[in-house]
């Protein structure tokens, strides 16, 4: 085009551009009209091709042209001739790639140029101001620096609310989709949580059970440590007698573990019973509440000894009865009953129970006291067997026929009476040279059975031959091997409570 070589400010080129634009618009209108006509022609042609009339000949037959077809044919011929002319002139037909850029289609270039310039200057100045402010280049001019800072801060103040609103909207939309996703997986999540909850409940139950077992194991461990000298061994109860009149159970230890018959069985320090039948790897224990059981016991306070038996087979109560107590006084309710260590291999001092009630005897053989066992027989799971067994001491000089009875030791001097002596009171006639000989000899008789309660060793002192000397009262101080020994104070029995009424406290009361 001619206008393309000139500058936009050239009036001639501007006029030519305007003229060409006008012509282009006119041609475009013509092209639109032609297109509509072509559409109609094509539709008519297609219709005739698909549904040709019975007497139709080829559409190319000019003799059959309708007036519209004739015009269409004429236009087609004109187009072909024009293209031929353009091809001859060396100008290629208009094609999409050869169209000029849209820049030439713009109108009002001055106005547009001014706007572009203003916007460009504004943006560029904003860039420069921001750069100078960030590099502190305006620090020498405080006014400009403040202005730049205000501009930047105001820009940020304008953008921030929009950004926050957009962000909130985004989060809202994302939250909606997250909720949808959550709802879609709600059922799976529920099932998963349910299974997890079941597992956790099981674990919690297991933890509680293990906690209880741990407490029990700790108690057993303390008990074992406390009674270490009695060789305790912890056992599990693996079977219980289901009846209501006998109370026996089976433990998982036997002869292979050092257990023998009639060994004490305790639980948390209280006597449960004793082993009755022992196999290699299990044992049967009879409890103290069983009516077949019989254990030597004593009242801790009064030291009155008796026999404890169970009352389960008698009256069906899980209690014990203590028989053969002395008649002079009865124990009070609340007194502790312990093992006496007299029979079986029981250590002495194991708590059995407490006195619950006592009966006034009608006959001595029916007098008993009810002892409430300390142990809980309904919740037994673990027991301890005391494998205590006293070792028999060798008997020395057993063949010596002269068995001499010697008194036990005492801190108080006591007179020694010689058997066969005639002169009991003539001390002066005694030979001074015949001083009594005090011979300290070794133990000639086996000592008493050692029990857990510590007792001092005694030394037997043999005196001289009583048949040769005149009788006299002699005070001998028995020496012990332990100079620091002090005797165990004999416990005084608790006084039997009784009511003392003086004469002044009594008064006459008349019968009504």
């Amino acid at each position: 085009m001619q206008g393309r070589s000139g500058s936009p400010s050239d009036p001639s080129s501007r006029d030519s551009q305007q003229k060409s634009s006008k012509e282009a618009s006119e041609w475009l209108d013509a092209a639109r009209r032609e297109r509509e006509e072509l559409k109609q022609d094509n539709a008519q042609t297609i219709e005739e091709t698909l549904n040709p009339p019975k007497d139709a000949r080829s559409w190319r037959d000019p003799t059959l042209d309708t007036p519209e077809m004739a015009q269409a044919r004429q236009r087609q011929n004109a187009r072909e001739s024009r293209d031929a002319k353009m091809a001859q002139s060396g100008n290629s037909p208009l094609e999409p790639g050869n169209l000029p850029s849209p820049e030439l289609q713009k109108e009002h270039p001055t106005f547009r140029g001014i706007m572009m310039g203003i916007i460009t200057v504004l943006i560029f100045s904003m860039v420069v101001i921001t750069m100078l402010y960030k590099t502190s280049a305006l620090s020498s001019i405080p006014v400009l620096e403040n202005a730049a800072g205000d501009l930047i801060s105001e820009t940020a103040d304008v953008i921030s609310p929009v950004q926050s609103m957009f962000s909130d909207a985004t989060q809202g939309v994302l939250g909606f989709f997250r909720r949808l996703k959550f709802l879609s997986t709600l059922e799976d999540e529920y099932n998963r949580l349910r299974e997890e909850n079941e597992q956790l409940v099981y674990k919690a139950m297991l933890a509680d059970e293990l906690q209880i077992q741990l407490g029990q194991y700790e108690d057993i461990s303390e008990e074992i440590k406390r009674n270490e000298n009695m060789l305790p061994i912890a056992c599990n109860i693996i079977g219980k007698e289901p009846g209501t009149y006998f109370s026996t159970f089976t433990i998982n230890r036997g002869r292979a573990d050092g257990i023998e018959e009639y060994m004490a069985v305790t639980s948390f320090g209280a006597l449960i019973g004793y082993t009755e039948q022992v196999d290699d790897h299990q044992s049967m224990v009879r409890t103290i509440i069983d009516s077949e059981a019989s254990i030597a016991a004593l009242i801790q306070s009064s030291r009155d000894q008796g026999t404890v038996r169970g009352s389960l087979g008698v009256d069906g109560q899980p209690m014990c009865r203590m028989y053969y107590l002395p008649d002079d006084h009865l124990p009070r309710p609340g007194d502790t009953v312990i093992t006496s260590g007299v029979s079986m291999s029981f250590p002495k001092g194991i708590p059995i129970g407490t006195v619950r009630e006592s009966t006034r005897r009608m006959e001595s053989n029916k007098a008993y006291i009810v002892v409430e066992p300390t142990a809980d027989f309904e919740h037994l799971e673990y027991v301890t067997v005391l494998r205590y067994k006293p070792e028999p001491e060798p008997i020395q000089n057993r063949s010596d026929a002269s068995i001499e009875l010697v008194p036990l030791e005492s801190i108080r001097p006591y007179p020694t009476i010689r058997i066969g002596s005639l002169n009991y009171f003539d001390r002066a006639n005694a030979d001074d040279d015949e001083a009594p000989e005090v011979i300290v000899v070794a133990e000639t008789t086996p000592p008493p059975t050692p029990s857990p309660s510590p007792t001092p060793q005694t030394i037997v002192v043999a005196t001289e031959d009583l048949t040769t000397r005149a009788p006299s009262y002699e005070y001998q101080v028995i020496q012990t091997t332990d100079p620091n020994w002090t005797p165990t104070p004999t416990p005084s029995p608790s006084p039997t409570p009784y009511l003392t009424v003086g004469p002044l406290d009594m008064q006459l009361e008349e019968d009504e």
Partner: protein
Amino acid sequence: MIQRLERFGHMFLRSVLREVLLFAAIFLGYLIQVCVLPNFPFLSLQPFMLFTVMATVTVCYGRLRAFWCGAIYGILMEIMLSTYQLMNLLFYPAVAMLCSVLFADKSAQQLEYEKNIGKSGRDRSPYLRTFLCAQVYSVFYEVVNLAYLYLRESLFPLNLVLRGLWAILLCSIFALIVMLPLRMFFGYPIRRRVVPKVVPYQPSSTQEPMQWSI
């Protein structure tokens, strides 16, 4: 006269609308970049909406609008999300200007010149140019960042280079997807008017239509 005024008003409104759409797309691209895309990470990377918008504006509008777009993004990122001082402010406009030289539409004179010297005389496909422009933007960005790290920390870890390559790939794929609706938003492909290339042909009385392209 009235028709002239009407056409003037119509054209003016069309131009204003085009510019308004441009600024709206620029600002919307910034909001999407800072508010939406951080919620959709891929391999701990997020695509660059800014480069996609800049590439589309470069191809659709030309060099001047590309500079506007780069400068506005530089100002926004420098004020709101500054990482290294002046890096955003200088990087975005400079890279926009550079890539506009490579990927913007050629002028009519340049097309005519290329055609006269025997070349095709056409612009390449705008979609290809937009895709390549976005890729070049992301390449420049990763290179500048790695260079800054190397100069500052004396570090050049290989994992960061691989991460940069992944970012370039992600940006390219994102640009390929987003440029289509963005170009439609800008009104592309645009209906062009028929302007004859040669001396006006005297139409015949039958007013033959001319070929045009849409």
